[in-house]
């Protein structure tokens, strides 16, 4: 058939004089071709669109100076930088408490000042994780036998979440964790379907990676272990369960083993990350004493706090829709019972976060609910991919209600963008996750950049100042610089031209040690700023000051 005849047959209108109706025939071949095209290339098209959205979002947040608003983002970047540059560069700078993988991934790029100071070195992994998570949502939905439409809806729900778009533009660890956890969940679901060892190994691998990003990954490892062992035992007996236990633990638990080993080798205590002076436990203890850890041992508060965190991050209505979708999965007889049970891995982040709040291992402030400010409200975003999956499933199964569900979703997405409702941005702009250190860092940038000499500062307390000063890392003497730190805190006038610290705060290690040295009288107080004071060595002591890094390589 010629092209013109094909076109003519595709649009064949007829007028029916009796009912005044025009009729246009839908060419079935075109229809079929379109469906086939999407079936074949839909995933690639979706991935490409995600890449464009990711880059666009980063560009937007970068030009509006939001990518570095989180104090933690600057700290993560600094940790990565300290591995490659500073007075004592090396792997030991990975430190403890925060798990190392995000910082390790920065190492190939963070040596570049632009990549460091724009935050791109950290954002790149978040952006890649964003695209990967969208891909995984698609794949998980196809495992759950969801049609193209449902998959597109699921991915769009995820990709249009403003909090996700913001976090994927930063050097925060949420997106990387989400991607690895969902990769693990996807492979687990696949293993449940095909019982192939390769899927199990892949699941173990991704979960292992997640255990090296955040402690949420440890819970997922434990949850997956329980599920796998239980399933193998139920199906094939105790021997099979035992085998799965060792196979899974060997790989998935390897990251955890390495972390204990690391803490033992570097800090002399395998539990240094859990109970050391900079651990979350130490932080939570202080908060508990101050009486603000109200979720501890209070299940109602814990549930309510996390509910609000989820609702504000993922939109309340979408959370409710997802709950309906999750219930449908649980009772959907078209899915194998084992698949329905395996899908529960998608709610592991929910269980972990509530548990962490209840046990007092996590702190989360919701403004107006349990505090006057925002803090760590981004923890609520961890359920976003699962919510997207559940909504995609709901759209697929509730055929007659598709126009309603999709219409409501479009309205919510439109209003979210028009109101610019992103609670993670609020936390970064005005909440407790931000730190406006511009006055201190600005002073350092103006006065120390073109002068010789080191700045003595606690990285644990003032990493944001280090980052924002735009000075190279090797200008700073901090806890991780070994002998430099020991010397500078005992004889500051010999090593530190400037001291940045919170005066009279013994939580600031710099003040605690410098105060003991009784050398502060040799310094002038330049000024007191929010978060820290700056001291400058008096001119008469400058001739005794070391301005070169002359202690050589250290162990």
């Amino acid at each position, binding site marked *: 058939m010629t092209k013109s005849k094909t076109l003519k047959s595709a649009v064949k209108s007829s007028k029916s004089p009796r009912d005044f109706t025009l009729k246009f*025939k*839908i060419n079935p071949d075109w229809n079929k071709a379109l469906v086939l095209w999407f079936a074949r290339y839909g995933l690639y098209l979706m991935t490409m669109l995600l890449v464009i959205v990711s880059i666009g979002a980063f560009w937007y947040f970068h030009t509006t100076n939001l990518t570095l608003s989180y104090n933690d983002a600057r700290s993560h970047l600094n940790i990565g930088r300290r591995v490659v540059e500073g007075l004592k560069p090396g792997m030991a700078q990975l430190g403890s408490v925060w798990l190392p993988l995000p910082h390790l991934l920065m190492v190939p790029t963070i040596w570049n000042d632009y990549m460091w100071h724009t935050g791109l070195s950290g954002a790149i992994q978040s952006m890649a994780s964003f695209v990967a998570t969208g891909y995984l949502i698609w794949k998980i939905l196809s495992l759950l036998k969801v049609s193209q439409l449902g998959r597109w809806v699921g991915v769009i729900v995820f990709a249009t979440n403003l909090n996700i778009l913001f976090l994927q533009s930063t050097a925060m660890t949420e997106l990387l964790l989400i991607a690895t956890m969902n990769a693990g969940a996807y492979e687990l679901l696949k293993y449940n379907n095909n019982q192939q060892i390769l899927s199990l190994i892949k699941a173990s691998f991704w979960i292992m990676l997640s255990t090296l990003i955040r402690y949420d990954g440890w819970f997922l490892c434990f949850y997956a272990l329980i599920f796998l062992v239980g399933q193998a035992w139920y199906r094939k007996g105790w021997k099979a369960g035992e085998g799965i236990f060792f196979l899974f633990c060997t790989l998935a638990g390897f990251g955890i083993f390495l972390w204990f080993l690391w803490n033992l080798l570097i800090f002399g205590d395998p539990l240094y990350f859990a109970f050391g002076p900079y651990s979350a436990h130490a932080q939570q203890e202080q908060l508990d004493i101050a009486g603000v850890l109200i979720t501890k041992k209070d299940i109602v508060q814990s549930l309510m706090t996390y509910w609000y965190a989820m609702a504000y991050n993922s939109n309340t209505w979408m959370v409710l829709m997802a709950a309906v979708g999750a219930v449908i999965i649980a009772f959907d007889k078209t899915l194998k019972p084992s698949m329905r049970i395996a899908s529960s891995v998608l709610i592991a982040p929910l269980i972990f976060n509530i548990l962490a709040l209840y046990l007092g291992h996590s702190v989360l402030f919701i403004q107006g609910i349990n505090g006057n400010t925002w803090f760590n409200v981004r923890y609520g975003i961890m359920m976003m991919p699962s919510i997207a999956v559940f909504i995609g499933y709901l759209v697929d199964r509730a055929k*007659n209600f598709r*126009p309603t569900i999709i219409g409501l979703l479009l*309205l*919510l997405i439109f*209003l979210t963008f028009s109101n610019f409702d992103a609670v993670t941005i609020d936390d970064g702009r005005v909440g407790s996750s931000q730190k406006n250190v511009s006055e201190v860092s600005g002073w350092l940038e103006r006065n120390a950049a073109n002068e010789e000499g080191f700045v003595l500062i606690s990285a644990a307390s003032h990493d944001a100042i280090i980052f924002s000063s735009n000075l190279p890392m090797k200008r700073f003497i901090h806890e991780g610089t070994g002998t430099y730190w020991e010397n500078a805190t005992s004889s500051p006038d010999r090593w530190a031209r400037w001291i940045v610290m919170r005066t009279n705060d013994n939580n600031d290690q710099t003040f605690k040690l410098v105060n003991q040295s009784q050398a502060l009288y040799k310094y002038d107080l330049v000024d007191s700023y929010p978060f820290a004071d700056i001291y400058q060595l008096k001119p008469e002591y400058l001739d005794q000051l070391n301005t070169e890094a002359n202690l050589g390589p250290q162990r």
Partner: protein
Amino acid sequence: MTLVQRVISLFIGLFVIAIFAVSLRGNWGAPNSIEIGASNWTKDGPFESSNERGRFALTYSVVEDNSVAFSLPLARFSTPDVAQANGKFVSLFAPGLSYLIIPAYMLGREHELSQVASYAVIALFAVFNFLLIRALVKHFGGSFLAGNIAALLFVFGSPGFAYGVSFYQHHVSTFAILASLYILARFKNVWTLGLVWFLCVASLTVDYPNFFLMLPIGLYALTRIVFVKQEKDDRYINFKYLGLLTFVTMVPVIYFFMQFNSASYGNPFQLSGTVQSAVVITEEGKVDVSEGAKRNNAQGSETKNDKTAIGFFDTRDLPNGLYTHILSYDRGMILYTPVMFLGILGLVALYKKNKTMTVLISTIVCLNLLVYSMWGDPYGGWSFGSRYMVPAYALLSVAIGMAITEWRRSWWFLLLLIPLAWYSITINTIGAVTSNENPPKSEVLALESLTNQRERYTFTRNMEMLNQNRSKSFAYNTWFSNNVNAWQFVTILATSINGVLTISLLALILAKSKKV
């Protein structure tokens, strides 16, 4: 319909009219613009909220002053829901309701009952809604008596009762929705769409958020003009082009709307809520800008300082909004009209009979809940129950009618229905004959510091009014207050309504046919 059904239908209809007649709020008289500001008309009278004052002021201004611009006394009467535009004081409300009551106002004025007659228009729409719910239940295959019960539950067992005896827009908005649904359900031809378009646009002149509530109806109506149809092995897109002519019914309403906006704000496309409000007007007749900027209105208002239409809806308010409308003591469905939860069961029953209408009704209910949960003030200012959810209550009542038909002999359903219905009717009767002025809990503390006494919220505030033997019912204050006290009045009303409902339910249970 059999003769018995017609008689029952007539009796119940007259009963509903009678209840509304004795519950209607008002005072005798046709006050002028100065008298209307007195406390017996405002705080202690029918114009207790700025919502009522602002809309009535426009009616008064159009009829008495032949102008949409308010005189100074009227402007003061309407604060804070009045704006200053181009040197004039103008209404901040959509004009539809104000214009709708003009004939009744003029008729009532002749008999010294201008306010009562105006309010009666709203009660009339409440009666229309009763009839429409009944008709919809019957059309969907529900039983005749179930339709009556469901309609009674809406008009008397929900805050729809309190807003059917005062001057709010909710029954008119609900009418537009129910009437459109009935037309679409009952008539399949294209020409009736003209009425639907008319109702869609007219509802916007009553309340702007009706845009969202009517949107699913409009989109569904469009599918009567453009639709896909399978014929043998082929699929066709059908376009009934003559259906485009039906849009012409929208033109007069749009013209009226644009004329009003032009006359009021100088811009035919300016929406009234997006104009700066004048919270306080000084003695000299000037707007106090500092007060207007602070916008600290204790009684609340539907209008806001947000100057864009979209700015009225904030997704951040969703958790609080949903909680407020469903579970809170302030306005929650659980406290004011728990019988409406049975509507969710009813949707399951309706789905078996008519999938399309179930989807449409569910969509409108969800949109109603969603839109007003994102509203900056989900409480509706000082109000009785969740007034914004009145349209949703009407639709849920239709579903309840189907549930009653389906499970009329199931003990578990009756165990839920009867106590919930009695409770809902009693609570809402208390609200209807007293006042809508309930502060939200968040304002009670501030109120207590002003008044130096314990201030109640929820319907306990209404009960307190009854304890003081106070009612705002025109009939009670005019004819009955010498014979019965306020509590007795409420008891008689509530018992009558519950009695009619229970007898109808009993008749339904005992009837052999499901169609009864």
